[in-house]
């Protein structure tokens, strides 16, 4: 099945990004395709390569990048939400791209299921 995911909260502040990641991983393990994750609201902060968690903590940003690389997941950051919050091409982590809200609409029309994680 073709699954889309929406993440509305930033990393470390809220559990949403962790829940979304663990859901995505489980879906892929079960043989489903997670074709797109759309990051909106503070969720755009998941794409900052400047993020540096303490050594003993999970690296939420790298985890998403790795998922994108290994399973061809399209990680899309909303441009309007990103610009508001200082996320730009120059600080974008690997595997993420910045695009418009149309990509979220497309995630809705082209996915068999769309699952939202937020506050």
């Amino acid at each position, binding site marked *: 099945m073709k699954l889309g995911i929406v993440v509305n909260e930033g990393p470390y502040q809220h559990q949403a990004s962790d829940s979304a990641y663990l859901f995505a991983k489980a879906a892929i393990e079960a043989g489903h395709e997670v074709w797109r994750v759309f990051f*909106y609201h503070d969720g755009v902060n998941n794409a900052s390569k400047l993020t540096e968690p303490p050594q003993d903590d999970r690296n939420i940003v790298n985890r998403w990048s790795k998922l994108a690389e290994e399973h061809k997941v399209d990680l899309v950051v909303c441009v309007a939400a990103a610009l508001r919050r200082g996320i730009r091409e120059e600080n974008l982590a690997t595997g993420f791209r910045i695009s418009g809200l149309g990509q979220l*609409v497309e995630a809705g029309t082209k996915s068999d299921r*769309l699952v939202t994680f937020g506050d």
Partner: protein
Amino acid sequence: MSDVKKFMFVNRKAPYGTIYALESLEVVLITAAFDQDVSLMFTDDGVYQLKKGQQTKGIETKNFSPTYRALEGYDVEKLYVDQESLQERGLTEDDLLVDVTVLSRAEVGALMDEQDVILSF
């Protein structure tokens, strides 16, 4: 985009305290621009988004409430409000800045069942 789906946006959050209501409205406009079948549901504190007379000068924030009145121009005409949420907040339909359809919770549930995609922020 050829495939048209029924999108419902469920609004449960009040405006200004957080940005969700404003950024949700941006998605609504884009979804309508992509010719999807759009409806908006306002329930719980989400009904406050539609209160008449919002004056935001004092908080130095853009008053985005006129946008709800402009939705018609984007062919977004299906605005629904949960009656119980209005009542709980001491509001009536007359307090709202735009024409809506007021529904009972059972009617809201039935409408949700008809959707293809339900988004909430």
